């Protein structure tokens, strides 16, 4: 398994500002992802955080709005840039520990609840 620490747990931000969310894992992991969960909705994948290279973004998400870093196998950040009220969501990081059967499930952080005024 993996223990994931996600910070901050919640924040209230002003329109036009940026917020960086951190995801720290207690062990080296194969894959890291960032998801968004809008109020009352399901989760949508934002991007795959690639270690040492640019993240891979899903349709509808761009690097300028959601820059992601992953400097090593245990840490990643997601920045929500130039925020608007529509960015109010829960942002979650998840990890896959390994690729072998039984190790390929995803573990999620507790999430960052973001409100943009």
């Amino acid at each position, binding site marked *: 398994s993996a223990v994931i620490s996600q910070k901050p747990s919640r924040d209230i931000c002003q329109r036009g500002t940026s917020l960086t969310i951190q995801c720290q894992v207690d062990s080296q992991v194969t894959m890291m992802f960032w998801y968004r969960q809008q109020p009352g909705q*399901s*989760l949508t994948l934002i991007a*795959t955080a690639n270690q040492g290279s640019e993240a*891979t973004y899903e349709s509808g998400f761009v690097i300028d709005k959601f820059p992601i870093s992953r400097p090593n196998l245990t840490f990643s950040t997601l920045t929500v840039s130039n925020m608007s009220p529509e960015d109010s969501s829960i942002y979650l990081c998840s990890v896959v520990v390994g690729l072998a*059967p039984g190790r390929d499930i*995803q573990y999620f*952080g*507790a*999430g960052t609840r973001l409100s943009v005024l």
Partner: protein
Amino acid sequence: SQQGEEDPQALSIQEGENATMNCSYKTSINNLQWYRQNSGRGLVHLILIRSNEREKHSGRLRVTLDTSKKSSSLLITASRAADTASYFCATPFLGGGSNYKLTFGKGTLLTVNP
């Protein structure tokens, strides 16, 4: 786009009763997973069933998978108030590229009344 769709959207039962939630998906998969989310917090992995499995048990959870109907069900037996949460099914992402990217259904909100 979302691949999984849960049914019902909301379910309210009494403690001790069984709860059944269903998930339908659109394309071929190699596995299907169920997660629980308590009150807007992080997701907790419950169980993974692979495409060559028809049924799987874990404690009070029973999951079935019917690949011919592209559907799965999650049964929670002898429910407790602590089971109150949203339950999501998740399948590998449409469009390929990785079996580890997940697409989630809309979820079933389960309320277990004491």
